[in-house]
């Protein structure tokens, strides 16, 4: 069964067509990577799923129920983590989760139990300072906790890692990895390595349209027999590698030098541990 189903969705701002007739389904239990460059229309799509923006045409179904703008009925199935979640700075994390719990009608005991559990999961169990003193990473983690308080069937994360430092990014990805299987997650990003780490399905939004939709394993399978990744300790010239291959009568279709961004990132993670 699809937790989220989008059919022929379109949206324009003035003359600018942001979303052009897109359709896709997110099956239950999957972690769905929604990939696109900045300004590709990811946030717009997510806001329409949440009923925060009206669609020009097309339909959105969450757990089989149709989403309509302004009404927030389908949001009871959804947990939402905005790209930059905003809180009331004068509250403490436990108080904020209490507000969220009360709003969705949980009983006091339930709120206490679930808040404690969620704060532990996101690593904020011992933090009792007011939210105005939180770092961006802490706010993002609290954002995950508040999004999960209603035990949503669908967790929507809008670029949850884009604004974070590598450490904060790793934390969020670890948390999302932990809830994999319990909740269906749709996760928008332009950071492909994040998708590779936690997603099992993905769709690529490019120039207002879905240009690729597949499972990650299918994509990997397609490339499996063709590509070999080599990693060297020492600095090495790719020409040299190609020469060795050529000598052995092997002619690769494509040659890519080491991913500088990736190695910097792993270096950072290593020294910042």
């Amino acid at each position: 069964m699809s937790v989220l189903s989008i059919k022929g969705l379109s949206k324009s701002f003035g003359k600018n067509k942001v979303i052009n007739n897109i359709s896709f389904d997110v099956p239950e239990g999957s972690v769905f990577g929604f990939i696109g460059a900045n300004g590709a229309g990811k946030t717009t799509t997510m806001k329409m799923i949440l009923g925060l923006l009206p669609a020009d045409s097309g339909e959105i179904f969450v757990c089989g129920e149709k989403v309509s703008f302004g009404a927030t009925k389908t949001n009871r199935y959804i947990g939402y983590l905005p790209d930059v979640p905003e809180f009331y700075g004068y509250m403490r994390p436990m108080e904020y989760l209490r507000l969220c719990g009360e709003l969705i009608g949980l009983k006091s005991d339930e709120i206490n139990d679930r808040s404690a559990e969620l704060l532990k999961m996101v690593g904020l169990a011992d933090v009792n300072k007011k939210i105005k003193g939180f770092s961006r990473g802490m706010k993002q983690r609290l954002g995950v906790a508040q999004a999960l308080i209603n035990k949503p069937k669908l967790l929507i994360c809008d670029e949850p890692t884009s604004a974070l430092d590598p450490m904060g990014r790793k934390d969020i990805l670890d948390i999302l990895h932990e809830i994999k299987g319990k909740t269906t997650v749709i996760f928008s990003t332009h950071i492909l390595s994040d998708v590779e780490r936690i997603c099992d399905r993905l769709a690529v939004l490019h120039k207002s349209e879905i240009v690729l939709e597949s499972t990650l394993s299918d994509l990997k399978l397609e490339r499996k027999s063709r590509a070999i990744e080599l990693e060297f300790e020492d600095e090495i010239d790719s020409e040299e590698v190609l020469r060795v291959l050529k000598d052995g009568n092997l002619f690769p279709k494509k040659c890519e030098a080491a991913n500088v961004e990736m190695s910097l990132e792993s270096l950072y993670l290593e020294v910042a541990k």
Partner: protein
Amino acid sequence: MIEFIAFTKKEYMESLRTYRLVTLAAVLLVFGILSPLTAALLPEILGAIDLGDGVVLTLPEPSAIDSWTQFFSNIGQMGMLAVIISFSGSMANEFSRGTLVNLLTKGMKRHVVILSKFFSASVLWTIGYALCLAVCYVYTAYYWPSDVITNAPFAFFSLWLFGEFLIAILIFSGTLFGSFYGALLSCFGAIVVMALLNISPAIQKFNPISLSGDTLALLSGHKEIADFFPAVIICVSAIVILIIASILVFNKKKV
């Protein structure tokens, strides 16, 4: 109702922790104390000033009516200014900071936000107003125990109602413009327009601003309670319309 209670609790926590309640109550309380005090001391202060050539101003013996004159002019101006500043950000800050997104995406109904904001602001205003009224009342009764003021309860009510009207304007303009200054300036704008309209005697009777400005005429007996009924009806209707309009605007607003 569950949502309303939860959100209203948040509103009170906000008022306490951002010192909105304390500031508003303190400002109103100061004017509550100051009004009878000024009335009692003004003749002495002016009497002590030598205007030159030995000319000294002598004022008639102060009375309870002077104390209430001070009260209505202080609260009608500075008190209302305190209300406007306190509540300009109530709705606007939620928009400018984006703090409603998390709550609305949990399925909270939008009209709950408006109703809760209006309710909690009204309660704060009522508490602050009651406090300064009580203080002024006690002092006035202490200084001038034998003085009787006519129509006092209705005058108190009409100033309170005008405060409610301002709160409704602030919530509506805060929802419409989504910014602190938008709300603040719209409210000042509305007051200026009402003050200008008040120049025409035909409109005065219906003008909500007379609930704040004309209370002295009521106390001194120049006007009857019945003279204020049209303005009260207009004011109450305007509050209801503003709150409904706020909900309609908010329902169509992108957050």
